[in-house]
């Protein structure tokens, strides 16, 4: 038994293939988008179908500050990747820190919103269809923010311990793709829940 040789004349054109990390992340984003679409469809389907109060108009406020923070964190994440690509590790670490800070502000606003909804208006996931769909859709998004936050923190620690260099730029880019996706989903959630839903 021996291996049959399959090595032919090598063609002149360089053989380049897409990065597997980016392809893998793109696939994950596609799968996650499908999950979010189902939750958004459920939300839209049940708008105005609750049998009892409170209604979104009575209790929801536009989370303007949170939205600005989350969307600008996409810019800082991008800046982190570009500075790592130029091998400026400390700048990258600073941008990562800014991203994490903005994400924490966003989560703080979500927590505050949920606290008020639960303790002032008595809206829980079992109250009515609005509660069911609101907490599950916004909660699903917040879960993704938390997951992204954990991964960003790992990257930040790597940066602070000087364990990161320009060869990790591609890995950080994969992470930033995820983060951009989380932001893009928020645009949809914001439109559906806080604009259309009211």
């Amino acid at each position, binding site marked *: *038994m021996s291996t049959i040789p399959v*090595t032919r004349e090598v063609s002149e054109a360089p*053989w380049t293939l897409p990065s597997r990390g980016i392809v893998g992340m793109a696939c994950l984003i596609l*799968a996650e988008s*499908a999950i979010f679409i189902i939750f958004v469809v459920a939300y839209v389907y049940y708008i105005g179908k609750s049998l009892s109060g409170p209604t979104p108009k009575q209790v929801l406020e536009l989370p303007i500050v949170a939205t600005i923070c989350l969307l600008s964190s996409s810019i800082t994440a991008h800046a982190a990747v570009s500075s790592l690509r130029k091998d400026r590790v400390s700048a990258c670490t600073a941008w990562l820190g800014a991203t994490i800070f903005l994400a924490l502000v966003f989560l703080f606003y979500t927590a505050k919103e949920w606290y008020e909804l639960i303790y002032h208006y008595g809206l829980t996931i*079992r109250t009515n269809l609005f509660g069911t769909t609101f907490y599950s859709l916004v909660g*699903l998004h917040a879960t993704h923010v938390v997951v992204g936050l954990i991964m960003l923190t790992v990257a930040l620690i790597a940066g602070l311990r000087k364990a990161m260099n320009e060869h990790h730029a591609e890995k950080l880019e994969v992470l930033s793709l995820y983060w951009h996706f989380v932001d893009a989903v928020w645009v949809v959630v914001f439109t559906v829940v806080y604009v259309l839903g009211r």
Partner: protein
Amino acid sequence: MATTTAVDLTSQTKPKKLLLQVAHDWLTTVDHKKIGIMYIVYALVFLVIAGFMAMLIRIQLAVPNNHFLSPQVFNRLFTMHGTTMVFFVGMPILFGFGNYLIPLMIGARDMAFPRLNAFSFWISAFGGILLYYSYVGGSGLYGAGSAPDVSWWAYAPLTEKVFSPGHSTDYWTFSILLSGIGTTGTAINIVATILSMRCKGMTMTRLPLLPWIYLVTSFLVFVAVSPLTAAQIMITIDRYLGAHFFDTQAGGSAILWFHFFWIFGHPEVYILVMPAFGFMNEIIPVFSRKAIFGYPAMVAATVSIGFISLSVWAHHMFIDGLGAGGNIFFTAATMVISVPTGIKIFNWLATMWGGKIQFKTPMLFATGFLFQFLGAGLTGIVLSSAPMDWQLNNTYFVVAHFHYVLVGAILFALFAAFYYWYPKMTGRMLSERLGKWHFWLFVIGFHLTFDLMHVPGILGMPRRIYTYEAGRGWDSWNMLVSAGGFIQAIATVIFVVNMVWAFYRGRVAGPDPWDAWTLEWATTSPPPDYNFAVPPSISSRRPLWDLKHPEDVDSHYEY
């Protein structure tokens, strides 16, 4: 032309390993070939279990007024049979073959993410074990025999806490959720492998058709399995946190569950059947001694089936009151999907046309596939028309139709794949004689069972009934159907015997027993851990043909 160093593997004598070491090697492996084989073995174990359940169901239905099983046990049996066959036989076995074959066929040394691969396998396997654990844990440890009884689609609000108390439905939900996560992980891995691990010279137009099909199937997994995962999360929130997604008492909608389930459920049929097409694309040309006819058309048909399959789900809901507009759209979409499928059948026939066909066992099963898949498609067209469906919905006609696809097409393609790639995986040939016995018995049993099953359906026998009165004209048909089922079971036993026998006593295969053309035959059988001593580089769709026929290379004819 060919420059290389041949690696002689026979000289390396391997020391005998302890059983514990072997187990450790398999349990901790990240090698795509071992994971592929583990997927296949785990699917075969579940195939035997679910097949045994099918036999119990057929014993119960063989004669009228039978009290062999109680109604409750019957409900549990068809739920477990359906769930197991779709999630823990069909998907694992197809992903097992994909895992094993794709890196070999594209000339890579492993999958793109080997550890994700192992994770996906173990989480799927855990899902299957969890499903069967429900038999002892569904209603607490004292409720032995309390498996889920909500059928494989678990229609809401039947699955809500009010109608399904206890935990058997939770076991169902969690096992499907886990298998969904595992499937998505594998699909991500397959896409990343095919797009970024191809060997030098393998452009997308030279990619063998099997990886092409797995690529499209994986995209279907992303957009179809994820909705199922989302729906499982919703039903879990309903059951545990008291939410109201599918709780009709609080304004929730059962129809929404139907939509969410079938957005997964119909593309799932294509997720299962497309790899079967992939096996055909490899097996039929080799045993016809011709290159595949119409490679670009095959790719185009694959991609269009992928797209159209996303717009056919509501043909499962013709009788749910979608309205005429919805019914017309989904009737049309369902009929349109038969066009690319027809293109594929024509191309397989054109590949065989004028070829020097060798009817070895894999080719026998492939030919059986062609006939039966055509039959399945034709009864599918009957059901795709909304008025016919109003008449036949929830009768044995539907059961016969989808078993025609799942057994007649997919299982036959899988048997063909087993006979074709078993030498590659184990280094030994399966017995041709036992293979022919297996084939003919299975064909006879299959047609006896599923051809005749259409008749009681047309005569109005509803599905999911646990028994029926005598004198409705269903009795003798059911007896024959059950007899056919047992013939299939005997054929499957022959197949298992063949596999076990061949593993120890089969003829040694050598690297390329079928004189085939794709890259997996360019390495030893079974392949070494690193697949290829030298990473191959290719210049046409049939690299081994070029190697064997340097005077008449393929690349001159490709377009």
